[in-house]
């Protein structure tokens, strides 16, 4: 292979990260606020809407300016409580919301159970809000329950 060909290959390969980096800021994801159900009564489902400013979950993302990004969640099926007690937690088809203005009042709902592609705004700053429903049984053991919600963000 000629020297020019090797140089071309190297430039092409090196060009990939250079072009991605040129899209904007490094990709960062921050868990801002958890989903808070508060006091839950046995046998009474508790719903937290993604538009609830106090109790909905929130992630802030800094990323590519104007770029397509894939959002995917790892969602718990149950919350864990005292002595290993479990309580179902359910996520509906519109329990996640994407805000290109980082405003809880301006969201586009999407299904957190499915990977979703969104377009970042020109400043590269967005927020994702999450709601859910806790379904305690009628004989649900009293105590504190927790579950972890993971949001993975990928440049496309």
């Amino acid at each position, binding site marked *: 292979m000629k020297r020019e060909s090797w140089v071309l290959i190297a430039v092409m390969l090196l060009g990939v990260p250079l072009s991605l980096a040129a899209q904007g800021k490094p990709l960062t994801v921050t868990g801002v606020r958890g989903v808070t*159900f508060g006091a839950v009564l046995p046998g*009474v489902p508790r719903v937290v809407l993604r538009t609830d400013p106090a109790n909905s979950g929130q992630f802030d993302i800094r990323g590519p300016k104007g770029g397509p990004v894939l959002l995917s969640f790892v969602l718990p099926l149950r919350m864990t*409580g005292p002595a290993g007690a479990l309580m179902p937690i359910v996520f509906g088809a519109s329990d996640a919301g994407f805000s290109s203005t980082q405003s809880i009042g301006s969201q586009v709902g999407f299904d957190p159970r499915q990977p979703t592609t969104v377009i970042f705004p020109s400043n590269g700053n967005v927020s994702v809000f999450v709601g859910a429903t806790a379904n305690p049984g009628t004989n649900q053991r009293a105590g504190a329950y927790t579950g972890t919600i993971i*949001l993975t963000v*990928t440049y496309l």
Partner: protein
Amino acid sequence: MRSITKLSLVVAALVLTGTALQAQTNNASITATASVQTPINVVGAQQLNFGNVFPGVNKTIAATDLANAGRFDVTGQASTPVTLSFTLPATLSSGGNTMPIVSYTGVHALLVTQAGGVAFSPVAGATPTLSGTGALFVWVGAQVQPATNQVAGVYTGSIVMTVVY
């Protein structure tokens, strides 16, 4: 350029590319939290007892009759409203014989002494609030109407109270 140098350059480029692509994914987590309150517990503490009944003579036990009215004891989350509903028999049975039971009455109170009790209709149910210690007491009375030819025997029936938040 020597072949070994060319190869090193390509490998380095691949490594750099791979590193850069890996950096295009990031994640974070948040926690969902809930505090489950005390479950409801209901105990049938005292039977509704009509005692001796004579054929053709109706007998009524008032819900305020602490000795003979039926009583349920409820415990749950302090200061929390609950809904009471009842399954009430229309007759008492003794073998194949039956005797009508009608005119149910109820009282719920935060103290077992029935102080401050509130009358209600078991047919309609009620929505009281548990006490500051999570207690509630519910009494049920009714009237039996034995026929003039009512067959002698011990007659029984089940009253079921359901409590939900």
